[in-house]
């Protein structure tokens, strides 16, 4: 394995303090003719966990309809709504304030040998993130890529996940609009290019083909150095399961650990489990979708400690 994949090259925690961020995410659908009998699941509410806290969340649907909330298998919040009347457009807008925190577990400075996964005290529920899923198919070409990357097998869960992420980052070209939501992993492997979603799926497949449990994360990345007019959008990265440590985020698109600039919306086996907006409707097959996302720093609430 070449030195260019040395795990030490991963950028770690450039961002050393927590942030308070405001998110506005607007999705607009314009149908050809009208749509009706539309049933939708929305996963846009930021997760609250030791690394981030969702202070505020508002979901607006237009036309205005009641919303039914529940938690799915992976404990993501889902907002479900239905629109039975005919409507020419549909707008879903979420507004949230999220406080992100520095990982209280500190940096990953332990060894994680593979046999740690067999420890009887480790929760076996990571099994879901070891097997094939809708987008993360484990076919011969991905095994080949994985075996070439790890000719001697996995030595350390964390370091080798980092290698897999760096491998994807270095050897695949990030190209906007080069793929779409239905792109298969074998196409990405062949064309050697994709977007953050493909990078995440590919890294997941490399990990899972080697027996490393890893899951898909959908969310946002706060880009402090954003130039005016630069597009902001949803982002995707992965988390790897480290026994007795927990899930740890790593972003193959930027070759870096997920730090306080990352806002988590949902976790699942892959994109298919946690599409931000997922549903069916009756009407013509063509519709136009536009998305605006905006992530901004906000001041701490008045009276809050440092």
């Amino acid at each position, binding site marked *: 394995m070449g030195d260019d994949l040395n795990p030490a090259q991963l950028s770690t925690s450039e961002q050393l303090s927590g942030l308070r961020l405001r998110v506005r995410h607007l999705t607009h659908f314009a149908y050809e003719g009208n749509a009706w009998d539309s*049933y939708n*699941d929305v996963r846009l509410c930021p997760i609250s966990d030791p690394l981030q806290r969702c202070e505020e969340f508002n979901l607006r649907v237009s036309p205005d309809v009641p919303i*039914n909330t529940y938690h*799915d298998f992976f404990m993501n919040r889902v907002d479900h709504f*239905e629109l039975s009347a005919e409507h020419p457009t549909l707008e879903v807008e979420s507004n949230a304030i999220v406080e992100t925190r520095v990982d209280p577990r500190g940096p990953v400075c332990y060894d994680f040998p593979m046999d740690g996964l067999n420890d009887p005290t480790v929760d076996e529920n990571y099994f*879901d993130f070891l097997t094939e899923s809708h987008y993360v198919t484990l076919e011969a070409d991905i095994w080949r890529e994985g075996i070439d990357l790890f000719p001697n097998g996995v030595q350390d869960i964390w370091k080798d996940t980092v290698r897999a992420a760096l491998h994807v980052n270095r050897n695949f070209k990030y190209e906007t609009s080069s793929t779409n939501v239905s792109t298969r992993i074998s196409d990405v492997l062949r064309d050697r290019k994709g977007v953050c979603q493909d990078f995440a799926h590919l890294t997941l497949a490399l990990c899972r083909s080697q027996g490393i449990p890893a899951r898909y994360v959908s969310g946002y990345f706060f880009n402090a150095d954003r130039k005016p007019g630069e597009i902001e959008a949803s982002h995707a990265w992965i988390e790897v399961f480290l026994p007795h440590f927990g899930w740890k985020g790593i972003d193959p698109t930027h070759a870096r650990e997920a730090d306080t600039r990352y806002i988590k919306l949902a976790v699942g086996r892959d994109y298919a489990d946690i599409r931000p907006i997922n549903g*069916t409707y009756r009407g013509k097959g063509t519709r136009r979708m536009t998305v605006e996302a905006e992530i901004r720093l906000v001041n701490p609430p008045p009276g809050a400690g440092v």
Partner: protein
Amino acid sequence: MLLKDYETGDFFDEMFTADGNVRPHYRRVAEEFGDITREEYRNKQAAVELSFMRGGVTFTVYNDSQGTERIFPFDCVPRVIPVEEWEVLEKGLIQRITALNLFLHDIYHEQKILKDKVIPAHYVLSAKHFRREFMNFSVPKNIYAHICGTDLIRDKGGSYLVLEDNLRCPSGASYMLENRSALKRAFPDIFSAGVRPVEGYPQALLKGMQHVAPANFAGDDHPNVVLLTPGVYNSAYFEHAFLARQMGIPIVEGRDLVVRDFKVYMRTTAGLVRVDVIYRRIDDDFIDPSVFRPDSILGVPGLVNAARAGNVCLANSIGTGVADDKVMYYFVPKIIKYYLGEDPILNNVDTFLASEASDKSYILDNLAKLVVKSANEAGGYGMLMGPWAAQEEIEEFRKNIIANPRNFIAQPPISLSRHPTWCEEGFEGRHIDLRPYILYGEKITVTPGGLTRVALRKGSLVVNSSQGGGSKDTWVLHNKA
């Protein structure tokens, strides 16, 4: 060969003891069929078949070019279960369904059985019918499997064993009812033996459905219950229509239902009518395209969320198929022990899991002696009968087992009990099983009897209707013989 020349062979025979005597609970049946002539029997048989055909008591065989609608072959000699045997079966089935219901609640909530490592978590998570979408879903009265059909067989010594559980959409109850009425028409006299009735099944089923309706149900006096069918091309459509008629409830297809404000309505000529309970005969995969298979045109978009909101109850519940997985079957004795602290009253057939290393090598070394089953197939499909299989078939399974061990289990072949059955020239022994129907409503009840399926081909052990099986009326006697 008439009954007096009948040979039991080297099998457990339901009617005759090994030395050729009629078992006491078959006395009345033996009197009736003991001196029947070939001509008499054939006349009765022809009358029964004609009435089935006219009544449309048929089923569909998929992938068969010779017409798909056929009658379910019926044999006139009833299968009789003495009351003392039945009482044990009843207790055993109630125990089993109670435990499976607790298991379903647990794995869709706290998952204690996985945390306590009684069942390795990966077996549940990899089960084809484990529905992640259903997690933390509360079902009315905590009942998951309202209707269950459990397949039982008897081994060489006559002990009853559980072969599989059917907790999704078990079918066949209509044949249990039709068989009874056919036999009553053809041989009215033999019912003097004192046979417990099965005719209460549809009303018991309806009461069970009404029991799980939302407290503020929409119907006037009773909750509105409907039967949801995939449509006329489904192999069990006759049964759907039959049961709906018997219960006096509407039969609907997916397109007849619509969800508004998380409530389910039926389109009628008088406008939309609220629905409280759906006896659904559509598999999970097809029931709601907005949650499961988006290409399904059979289902009702929004239905799952209406159920989640507590405005409608689905029977059986979503996600019960995980308990049908043949790998989960292996764990049922442990499930009973874990939730009830009891030993199982009815035993499983010895089972090997191909995904356990030691079992796998045993299975691969002994393929020619074992019965191998796919974990999630039903109806006798995806099965290898080792001792009777061709070499190529065995090698095919060997490849599949190595490729995907999670998907296979193996069992020693059980020499099913036999029953005198009419075959062309007279009575011969044929292998049978038994599917009793268990209803979980206010309490758990088992309809006395069930569907006895018989493998009509000589020597065959496969009783499935899709594989050349027939059926018999099944009696449970009132009194001790």
